């Protein structure tokens, strides 16, 4: 299952190094994710997959192709575009979506974008609120989606450790940590009232390391920004901020070339890079296996002690 490419002949699944009838942990996670995706598609009227172009989305999309093979994807992809994504992300998105034959919906909060919403003047919280949360809720409502797949993982952040696989949202798209359904065995309760919706997280049980390993095993294409290269950066506190978009530089900040890469991809003004020389997936895994900082730390938005929990209550995935 974890070999890339297809063969015409039947392949013998059982790797010689594994005892018979045993799955590796990645194969088990893969099977669980496929099961979740099929449940959602079978039980919801109109699902959509949130596609952020990042590595977790790449894995989720790959799993979806596996889940519904030999048929096509039974749902469209939704990219909530803040307009501040990296150029490489847009290029990758258009190339990859076409390659796998998926249907892509791009949604932007045009109103806020035309009013010049940005994190420096309005603050990170307001900017995310308008361009991400607001745009997402708008897109979900416009499409009439009753289920939206998201690539969030429980290991990302403390408040996510209790997130369900099916996360219930009220008709305002909001999450109430006190009103989440218990999830037993592999039985997901997808019954909702009119106007309510579900965010489904098929890779809940994956860790950052699992994602990298799987990308390697399966040869899944990812945005080149994840690989190290000399990039123009400014140093701000502990963060390396991309200098590509000079309008977001503060006074006195001088870009210089730094061998660096991104561990997570968000918006250009708010995503920090890390110093790195990892130019291959093997080197990234090597680096991740000795990393002492969690990946979310390079996201400027999480800092402040309950910030992710607060954002989720408002409807951010």
């Amino acid at each position, binding site marked *: *299952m*974890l*070999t890339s490419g*297809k*063969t*015409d*002949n*039947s*392949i*013998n*699944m059982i790797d010689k190094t*594994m005892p018979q*009838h*045993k*799955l590796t*942990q*990645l*194969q*088990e*996670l*893969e*099977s669980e994710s496929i*099961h979740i995706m*099929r449940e959602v598609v*079978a039980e919801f009227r109109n699902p959509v997959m949130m596609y952020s172009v990042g590595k977790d989305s790449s894995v989720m999309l790959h799993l979806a192709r*596996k889940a*519904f*093979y*030999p*048929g096509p994807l039974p749902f469209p992809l939704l990219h909530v575009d803040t307009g501040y994504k990296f150029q490489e992300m847009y290029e990758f998105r258009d190339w990859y979506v076409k390659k796998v034959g998926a249907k892509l919906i791009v949604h932007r909060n045009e109103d806020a974008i035309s009013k010049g919403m940005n994190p420096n003047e309005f603050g990170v919280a307001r900017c995310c609120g308008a361009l991400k949360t607001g745009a997402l809720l708008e897109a979900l409502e416009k499409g009439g989606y009753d289920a939206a797949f998201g690539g969030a993982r*429980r290991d990302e952040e403390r*408040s996510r*450790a*209790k997130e369900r696989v099916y996360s219930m949202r009220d008709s305002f798209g909001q999450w109430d*940590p006190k009103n989440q*359904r*218990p*999830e*037993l*065995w*592999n*039985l997901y*309760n997808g*019954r909702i*009232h009119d106007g309510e919706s579900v965010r489904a997280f098929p890779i809940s*049980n994956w*860790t*950052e*390391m699992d994602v*990298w390993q799987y990308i390697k*095993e399966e040869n899944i294409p990812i945005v080149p920004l994840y690989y190290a290269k000399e990039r123009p950066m400014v140093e701000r506190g502990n963060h390396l901020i991309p200098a590509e978009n000079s309008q977001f530089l503060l006074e006195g900040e001088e870009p210089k070339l730094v061998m660096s890469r991104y561990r997570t991809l968000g918006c250009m003004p708010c995503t920090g890079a890390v110093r790195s020389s990892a130019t291959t997936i093997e080197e990234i895994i090597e680096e*991740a*296996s000795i*990393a*002492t*900082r*969690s990946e979310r730390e390079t996201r400027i938005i999480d800092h402040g*002690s*309950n910030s992710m*929990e607060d954002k989720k209550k408002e409807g951010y995935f």
Partner: protein
Amino acid sequence: MSIAKQDIELLRLVTVGSVDDGKSTLMGRLLYDTKGAFEDQLQAVRKDEGEGADGIDLAQLTDGLAAEREQGITIDVAYRYFATPRRKFIMADCPGHEQYTRNMVTGASTANAAVILIDARKGVLQQTRRHTHIISLLGLPHLIVAINKMDLIDYDEATFLQIKEELSEFCARQNIHDLICIPVSALAGDMVVERGNNMPWYEGKTVLETLETIDVSGHLDENEFRFPVQYVSRPQTKELPDFRGFMGRIASGTVKPGDEILQLPAGKRSKIKEIITFDGNLDEAFAPQSVTLTLEDEIDISRGDIIVHADKPPHTAKELKAIVCWMGEEPLSPHKKYLIKHTTNTVKAMVSEINYRTDINELTRDESANELAMNEIGKVSLKLMKPLTFDRFEDNRATGNFIIIDSFTNNTVGAAMIC
């Protein structure tokens, strides 16, 4: 995180203990000593004084939601992840209080092994018996008991042995066969990841060694073949105009092309034609793989049906009895209608009788009970609107369980194991 390795196995754990037994500290210790916690997460919970584990509130590493941090107790199931070069672990962290029995049942439902904490000063309490009983009800094959806070009883061997003896007797009666007792100090780190120097008299494995070596297979493949159909794939594309594949995750057993199968509950027969995956067709598939099956004959199969080997069918009935753990705000009551979700099937059901309610502290049965309140456990009889195909939970965990849904609120209000 530990060294990246691809062919490691997965162990799903549930950890249970009452408030202050040291559960969060133990999990924090596992995360800290296996480098499963990142430096910035440690930074966020570091107390002002000190460096290393001493200066860190280990419990804070695992206590997630804001409400919990304020109250200082674990009130929901939190999932934690860590890996060693030998295994990956998913730990469901559950509160142990009686009012959180439902959380514990939830956490235990997906686990293959349980870790229960006992405070060495207090020994085997009523709550320990309650926790053990629930673990046994949910059919977990392994129970690891960490007898914690050994530092507070001078690492006394005799006390440890006495607690172990008492537990062994109790577990034998509870149908738990693999009981492992380990003396630990989660705070000081003895026998969690490191052995420490304080208990030379203990020769067994540490907590981590135990977790890395217990059998995780669950022997799913040795059970009968059960394939609940999740989704019928009919792409009707140019390339695949007539394709009809049955998608699902094998709940138990193994399957090969050519196998004679039976579709239930209707009872139509056919043979497996192909086992399809994205990576190529398979000569054999086994639980818990997700696959797509095609059949030799055009028989009508839809979501909710189950495909099994023709010679080993499960039960099909419109009535059944089950042990239920109630999770709803409103009590379970006879003659009320509910929905049950069993494998991929959702069926209307009515409680015809409450056979008994278990006093989960005394482990006695009250046969006069006429409702089950939240967190209560009992045996009930159910009448179903249409026939359901199932196994007894004892024979097959995957096809012997279901959840109960309140058809008015849509909430999940019960977890059930078929008798």
